[in-house]
């Protein structure tokens, strides 16, 4: 594709120094609008991870393993990204709408005195312009947006762009980028960090997700679904209403202000499918819904559906699973 765009992907590294999956997604998104795709990797492991980024589509990787660059020190990350982008001069900057990205991208945009287009689900070139598509009004509508200022800064919704297949034959440079970061740049410190071990499959990575909505009526009904999830080797998910009611922790929430997931099968029980919820699961390969209301929104995006009371449907479903030997 002949394109006048230079893309800079702000990649991410995991806390253990390997390439975070969002990086591959951003590189794939960048490939739709630019031939020249530079990638920035900040933190321990950046140089080695840079090789992987080349295989996933970066034409050049800028790496810095400065000790101040950690996922907790977003102040340092913003400063680093700003310095790097000022050196590299991209026309477009792509950031993931991740925990780090959603703090980094807006601040980076305002440092360049440019707007941010947040949470994009599609991106394309239209002549000289890049046009991004993003959901608005909780997902009720989609907006196609172009920006005349450069650099254009966009965040891309996770699990929306499939990474390009890793190509070991791809060659490209991984260079060390020279940055001037001082410890004093950090103004937010982490005082405490509690990890709560979650049982079972990880929601973001599970191939099958069993999700419950407010319609299950009582938290006493949750064990039946936990058991179903375990039987199916699935992760458990929930709508925001379930979390707001205090029945499950926020870490189970799927939706616009929860997790974006893309499982093979998203099996929902008593979820109506409001736009904000669908925003989190719209990239599921197959959505299946059980709900009393034949008119509810989730059936409009479901491959299979049962109109009925979950309390009556579930025993039949579970019994058949058992007969089929699904365990």
């Amino acid at each position, binding site marked *: 594709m002949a394109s006048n765009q230079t893309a800079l992907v702000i990649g991410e590294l995991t806390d253990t120094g390997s390439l975070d999956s969002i990086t591959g997604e951003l590189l794939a998104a960048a490939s739709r609008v630019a031939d020249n795709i530079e990638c920035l990797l900040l933190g321990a492991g950046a140089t080695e991870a840079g090789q992987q980024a080349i295989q996933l589509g970066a034409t050049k990787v800028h790496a810095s393993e400065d000790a101040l660059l950690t996922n907790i020190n977003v102040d340092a990350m913003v400063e680093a990204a700003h310095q790097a982008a000022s050196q590299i001069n991209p026309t477009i900057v792509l950031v993931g709408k991740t925990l780090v990205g959603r703090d980094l991208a807006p601040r980076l945009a305002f440092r360049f005195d*440019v707007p941010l287009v947040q949470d994009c689900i599609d991106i394309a070139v239209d002549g000289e312009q890049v046009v991004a598509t993003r959901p608005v009004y909780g997902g009720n509508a*989609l*907006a196609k947006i172009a920006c005349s200022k450069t650099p254009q800064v966009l965040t891309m919704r996770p699990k929306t762009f499939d990474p390009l297949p890793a190509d070991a034959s791809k060659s490209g440079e991984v260079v060390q980028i020279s940055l001037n970061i001082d410890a004093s740049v950090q103004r*937010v410190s982490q*005082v*405490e960090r509690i990890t*709560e071990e979650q049982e079972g499959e990880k929601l973001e990575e599970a191939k099958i997700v069993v999700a419950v909505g407010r319609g299950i009526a009582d938290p006493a009904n949750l064990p039946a679904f936990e058991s179903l999830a375990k039987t199916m080797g699935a992760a458990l998910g929930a709508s925001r209403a379930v979390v707001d009611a205090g029945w499950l922790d926020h870490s189970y929430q799927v939706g616009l202000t929860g997790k974006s997931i893309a499982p093979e099968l998203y099996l929902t029980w008593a979820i109506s499918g409001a736009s904000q919820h669908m925003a989190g699961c719209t990239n599921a390969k197959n959505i299946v819904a059980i709900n009393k209301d034949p008119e509810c*929104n989730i059936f409009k995006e479901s491959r299979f559906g049962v109109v009925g009371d979950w309390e009556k449907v579930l025993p039949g479903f579970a019994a058949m699973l058992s007969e089929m030997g699904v365990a």
Partner: protein
Amino acid sequence: MPANILVCVKQVMDPETPMSQFKIDGATKRVLDPQGVPPVLNGFDENAMEAALRIKENDGATVSVISIGNQFVMDVIKKPLSMGADELTLLQDDIFDGLDAFGTAKSLASAIQKMGDFDLILCGRQASDFDQAHVPLGIAEILGVPCITMASDVQVADGKVRVERKLPDGYEVLEATLPAVVTVSNELAPVRYPTLRNIMQASRKQPNSMSLSDIEIDAAALNGGLEIQDLYIPVSDVVCEFIEGEDEEDAGRKLALKLREAKLI
């Protein structure tokens, strides 16, 4: 020393508006005000108000509120006063009608600089109309102060703000020296109902007024160069296959079979 807190709030279309009332004007590329569905205060901004009022109750604080817009519905926009805020300022001007996040952050930052010194600026994590989640970060960047997002708990002590935020696998506690901006998420709940006393006091209070000229900002600086080329309601091309049975339990059995047939389980 009691903290001087500012809460930024936005009047938005009710996110519970039924889809039958959700209509787009193709010419202006804007969503039309739904018939018979009044606007509301942005849900996450109510969480921000709650955070402010808890600090006021526990440690003492002055809670001021600001909102930027052009067509305020008094019943809606005065809700922070009914909840217990001390003061409300409306930043109102034609140019603020449909202003995007870029212009909003700049305008609010200018207004905040004019209004005085705040220790803590609290905002909802995002507005339910445009879901941009970046005005507060823009304000922090322009004012040169730290910003912590998605708080589930906010405490102020010894010139610092201490924020708890939920993570995908647990939570963390972050700290920053004041002044700072903090955005609040719905995990900071429950949100209090306005008391009758506060509602009556609020009805007697007149909000302070500011306009573009008061904040001394050039209208051209508010334009970030974003163009909405199209705004549309997506049409799903998915056709749902409904599974039926002799009764609901039987439908459950048939569903399991169907999923096996489709190689999904």
